């Protein structure tokens, strides 16, 4: 029992540190690696053993479920509402349980991204070829010891990228080439090289090019026409160089430098009778980070530091603008440090504390949101109790922040204290494991630089937008056997309330202002299911599905026609399902995502209704050996019934398309 408890704690800790622990086992690891050896096996059960809703997709699962890009992967997660502006270059943002994209923190390789300017992360910048795992946790990270920034967020989406293969003593090489519709090409190369018994050097690069000029249909009565997206070319390169040092007693130091560069032409909104667009977006992100973690007896510790520099250059070429173009050039710098310590006092009691300090500055060619900065201190104290079937985690979080601004009023600073409490109780163990879980959390999100400072509309007096989340769920897991490889089910109901919502609205015809106004009540249910059976050797049938019900009602102004109505772009029902058959000959995955009707307006104006959609796809693939190379050929048919739909109105999604991928690993 003690061993099990220790293992659970260990799993929690290592999961929190993400890639730190992934695959850290076996050959090159030092002898005292009992905890890390357990990491790879229990992952499928993380969703059903955590006391907060947790969903995870590994690269293998993504392949099995026919996932073709990051946006597609996100649509397979319950509770996620993806805003997809269509096509390979279209902006993709994630809102979880209707709370808005700014309440979701994205973490890459265990450390949070900073989006202080606009508040939302464009998930399109992460190539699916570089993503090893994608994990979504709601309310609270599953582990006791983690960066406070992650514990502070209402939802955390964790991506693990470009992980070296620590299982093999030999150099590891992975290469793939994808070719798809509309002149899409994307080669990927990744290599890891063991320098010594304890050191790994890894490097990866991904390039993507797409004309992205897919056809779409403009429904305009007798003037309806079929057109192609124009000005939609995408070029992107991602690269990462990493170094991993394994220390005795399961410690490790990981260091990486990553570069993201993209040059995009933006096709813009479909506007009646306008056939061209001339917007450009260039983005560069450079990040360097290092992280150390160590476990010694009852103690665990970690420390991490990160520096990021981002540049975003937007241009809209039009004679209306001074000099013939509207240019917005933003440069953001981000310093982040985090450290934490966990003490397993007794096998049933653990305490942890962690602290973050973060500094973000923004320079731009704009008059107002220029030379501004924000410094944040976050501190957390967490206690976890495991007693037989019962688990309780309490976390208190203090968040202090203040702003700086050159030659103008600064946004207001403040200190907040937010608690989180989550409990789990295993109802039955044995062949069928049932667990009940409940959690409550208070959190907030800060106003972005744009909301605080942007010309005319920004307001330095904004307060944070506050959220209260409650969750009650039930999970079920059936013990594996020779036939049954996986059988899990989770059902979670929730009630969330967001108040002091930060909204921009017109004070009169010309003047818009951002202010804290309004409230949203969010009630819903998320369910996930997975069933995998192996009827014969080499054969596996896997069925997965998720369903979300969300009632996101605006409760701002009873006099408004929007009062009580479903929030824009939020489907009441949404879901995804896939069926895969893996076999020695030709594997197949059939998958679908769907959503009920939505509206682009809060008042549900009839002309702004977006019809329900169902998007079907199929993937065929086969793996084989070619000498020392392990090869795979894969073909994907996307939107196979050529269904016309928008996720964001007037940003049409692509119709039927294909992708061919050839990959090889050594």
């Amino acid at each position, binding site marked *: 029992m003690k061993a099990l408890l220790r293992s659970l704690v260990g799993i929690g800790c290592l999961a929190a540190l993400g890639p730190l622990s992934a695959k850290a086992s076996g050959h090159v690891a030092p002898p005292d690696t009992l905890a890390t050896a357990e990491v790879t096996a229990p992952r499928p059960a993380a969703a059903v053993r955590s006391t907060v809703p947790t969903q995870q997709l590994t690269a293998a699962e993504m392949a099995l479920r026919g996932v073709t890009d990051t946006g597609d992967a996100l649509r397979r997660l319950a509770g996620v509402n993806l805003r997809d502006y269509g096509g390979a270059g279209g902006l993709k943002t994630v809102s979880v349980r209707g709370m808005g994209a700014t309440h979701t923190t994205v973490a890459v390789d265990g450390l949070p991204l900073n989006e202080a300017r606009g508040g939302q992360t464009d998930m399109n910048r992460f190539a699916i070829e570089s993503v090893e795992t994608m994990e979504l946790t709601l309310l609270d990270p599953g582990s006791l010891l983690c960066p406070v920034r992650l514990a502070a967020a209402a939802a955390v989406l964790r991506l693990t990228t470009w992980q070296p293969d620590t299982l093999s003593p030999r150099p590891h090489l992975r290469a793939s080439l994808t070719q798809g519709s509309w002149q899409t090409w994307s080669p990927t190369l990744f290599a890891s090289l063991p320098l010594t018994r304890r050191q790994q050097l890894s490097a990866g690069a991904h390039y993507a090019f797409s004309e992205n000029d897919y056809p779409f249909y403009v429904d*305009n*009565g*007798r*003037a309806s026409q079929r057109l192609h997206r124009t000005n939609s070319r995408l070029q992107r390169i991602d690269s990462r160089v990493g170094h991993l040092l394994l220390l005795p007693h399961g410690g490790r130091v990981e260091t990486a430098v990553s570069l993201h560069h993209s040059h995009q032409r933006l096709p813009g*909104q479909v*506007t*009646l*009778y*306008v056939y061209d667009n001339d917007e450009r977006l260039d983005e560069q992100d450079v990040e360097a980070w290092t992280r150390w973690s160590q476990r010694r007896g009852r103690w665990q510790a970690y420390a991490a530091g990160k520096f990021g520099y981002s540049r975003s250059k937007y241009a809209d070429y*039009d*004679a*209306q*603008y*001074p000099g013939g173009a*509207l240019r917005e050039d933003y440069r953001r710098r981000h310093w982040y440090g985090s450290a934490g310590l966990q003490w397993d006092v007794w096998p049933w009691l653990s305490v942890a504390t962690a602290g973050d300090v973060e500094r973000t500055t923004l320079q731009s060619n*704009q*008059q107002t949101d220029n030379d501004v900065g924000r410094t944040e201190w976050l501190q957390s104290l967490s206690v976890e109790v495991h007693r037989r079937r019962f688990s309780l985690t309490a976390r208190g979080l203090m968040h202090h922040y203040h702003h700086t601004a050159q030659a103008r009023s600064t946004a207001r600073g403040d200190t907040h204290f937010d608690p989180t409490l989550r409990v789990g109780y295993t109802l039955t163990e044995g062949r069928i494991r049932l667990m009940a879980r409940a959690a409550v959390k208070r959190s907030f999100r800060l106003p972005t630089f744009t909301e605080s400072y942007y*010309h*005319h509309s920004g307001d330095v007096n904004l307060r944070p937008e506050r959220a209260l989340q409650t969750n009650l769920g039930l999970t079920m897991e059936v013990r594996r056997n020779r036939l049954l490889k996986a059988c899990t089910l989770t059902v979670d109901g929730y009630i969330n309330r967001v108040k002091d919502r930060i*909204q921009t*609205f*017109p*004070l*009169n*015809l*010309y*003047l818009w*202002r951002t*202010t804290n*106004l309004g409230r949203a009540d969010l009630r819903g249910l998320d369910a996930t299911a997975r069933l995998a059976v192996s009827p014969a050797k080499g054969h596996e049938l896997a069925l997965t599905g998720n369903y979300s019900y969300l009632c996101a009602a605006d409760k*701002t*102004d009873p*006099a*408004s*026609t*929007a009062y009580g109505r479903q929030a*824009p772009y939020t489907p009441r029902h949404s879901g995804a399902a896939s069926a895969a058959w893996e076999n020695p000959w030709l594997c197949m995955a059939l998958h679908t995502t769907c959503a009920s009707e939505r509206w*682009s*307006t*809060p*008042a549900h*104006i009839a*002309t*702004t209704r977006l019809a329900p959609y169902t998007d079907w796809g199929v993937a065929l693939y086969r793996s084989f050996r070619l000498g020392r190379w392990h090869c795979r050929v894969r073909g994907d048919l996307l939107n196979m019934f050529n269904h016309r739909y928008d996720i*964001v*109105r*007037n940003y049409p999604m692509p119709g039927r398309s294909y992708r061919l991928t050839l990959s090889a690993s050594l």
Partner: protein
Amino acid sequence: MNKLLYRLLLPTLALMGTVASCDDDNNYRHETSEDNPPITPSSDDVTKPEGQTAFVVAQGNQGYAISGEVDGLNTSKHTSQTNLFSVTNRQGLGDTPQAPLRYGSRIYFPVFGSNCVWVCDAQSLRAEKQIMTAAPEALCAADGYVFVANNDGHVTRIDTLTMATTQSAAVGPNPAGLAAADGKVYVSISDGYNWQNGYVNGKKVVALDIRSLAVAATYDVPVNPGAVCADDAGRIYVLTRGDYATVMPQIVRLGHDGGCEVVVEGSSLLMDVSGSTLYFTDTVTDWATYTSTTKTYALDLKGQGGPQEINLDATADAAETRRLPASPTFIQVSPRGGHLFIGSLATGSGYAEPGYVYEYQADGAYVYRYSAGVMPFGMVFK
């Protein structure tokens, strides 16, 4: 033959009118009364364009993917009908239409986001032509031409006989308002996208010769000029919107010396001129509570007195907020009857909800509230 007659006759008549007006400014006749005789609704069916007495442009909201539309009002029967353009023409109007213009038997709808001007029959609303022109912001008409202020820095002239653009002139960055008077077209130059440099290339009104589109005069005005109106004496009034921070909006009258005089100062102004009366609304925002209060005024442009508030509460139960515009979007005076029409959002934050058009008598007495589309932005009367 008819075309030839029109081509010869109209310019001659126009030239006569120009010469006459040059003799004495007071003889100037407002284009509305002469060029836009009343059109009686030809149908009792208030669901059709022929049954309307006025049309309202609902600008929509591009951010929320709400296209523009044309709604109809029957001010005699107090009815309104939405989506008349798309129903009549079986295609959409386009995105972010601006204030329409009636000239003769046609109505012109400038559609900023869709780079076009629709020419429609004023009775049936049937589209006769779609004229492509860049970012049309405002219209005016005179002498058989319709003039378009293009936000790319031009004024384009449309020949109303051929329904084709005949000439274009560069006038300055972001022209925002137009009015024709005294043989000239007055265009306000806002340089509105250059706020970072203090609208440095704006702050002026350019007068173009109607015939040649050559610059006849330039007037200095306060920052960010927008709407332009002419009174029945041919004097030009310009609404300047300020910099939304320290410089407040004003309404100025152009002078003879290339300058202007301030007629009205306010917090957030909308205006219309009818005959010799300037009507305007002023919306004052309390920044502590983010609530706005709107007052409406009339100013006799011939007299020496100041603006007189029109009490829109001047009915027995006008305290009902449903009888008052929550957030005005335009003010317009009917050419016949002198009733005030004020477009408004449904609520202060109702920028993505259907709005209203309020009708009041000239003394402010409430008449009716008409339902309209999202962001009602301007109207024309038959």
